[in-house]
């Protein structure tokens, strides 16, 4: 077991643990803060895979912009436990049902394909030039330029929509 493999397993465990904390901590602010840790672990996984540019974008956009938006709204609303629904009983039955379903899915997969992990391709030792900014830009801006354009239009529509919603809210408050 070499160093990369150990790092991969530690990162995987951290990702799953922080993912669980994000999903099941009762307060939204704790979820949002654990989400930052989760995104940084994801970014480390991308570095391990060799996708350095994606790792930078992950920290910049997700941990830097989206989580800040979440924390901003959570602190703006400043909800008490009653409004958060923390007083309601925790639905243990649904948690047990869900865990059972996932376990059954894993069992079925294991029974159906015992060598599930063996037949799949092992990733190459060296990523080479894969994932560098130069290669990524060539592919992204030449071959998949329409996806770039569509993303731009989507962002424009989102800005218009959010502006419309916020404006409407202001009119109602007056």
């Amino acid at each position, binding site marked *: 077991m070499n160093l990369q493999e150990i790092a991969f397993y530690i990162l995987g465990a951290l990702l799953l643990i922080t993912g669980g904390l994000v999903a099941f901590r009762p307060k939204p602010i704790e979820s949002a803060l654990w989400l930052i840790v989760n995104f940084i672990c994801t970014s480390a996984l991308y570095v391990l895979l*060799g996708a350095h540019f994606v790792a930078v974008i992950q920290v910049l956009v997700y941990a830097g912009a989206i989580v800040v938006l979440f924390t901003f709204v959570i602190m703006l609303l400043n909800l008490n436990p009653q*409004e958060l629904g923390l007083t309601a009983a925790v639905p243990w039955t649904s948690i047990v049902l869900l865990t059972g379903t996932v376990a059954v899915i894993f069992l079925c997969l294991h029974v159906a394909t015992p060598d599930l992990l063996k037949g799949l391709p092992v990733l190459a030792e060296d990523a080479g030039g894969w*994932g560098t900014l130069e290669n990524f830009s060539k592919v992204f801006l030449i*071959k998949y330029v329409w996806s770039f354009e569509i993303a731009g239009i989507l962002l424009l529509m989102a800005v218009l929509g959010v502006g419309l919603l*916020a404006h409407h809210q202001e009119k109602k408050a007056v």
Partner: protein
Amino acid sequence: MSFSIAHILFICFGLFVIGASGFLIRKNAISMLICLELMLNAVNISLVGFGRMHGNEGGHSLYFLVITVAACETAIALAIILNLFRLRRSIRLDDATVLKG
């Protein structure tokens, strides 16, 4: 490096299941949105992993489209949640029964 695409897909599946279960179990809208981000993030991991498997940058392009969609969705959904809070003084989705008629 001796781990295969299956290891990455396993992590992706685990994160997606955690996100989906959180989405189904949680009651308030912001926590559900955070779980949605977790699910999108899990899919992103699989996209970059598949890109690495095939050795091309197509997965990265799709990754960028997904984070654009995630950012748009977060912004619009948080604006809707703010409006909902003004209307109902609560962000529990059980109270959001305006569309029920």
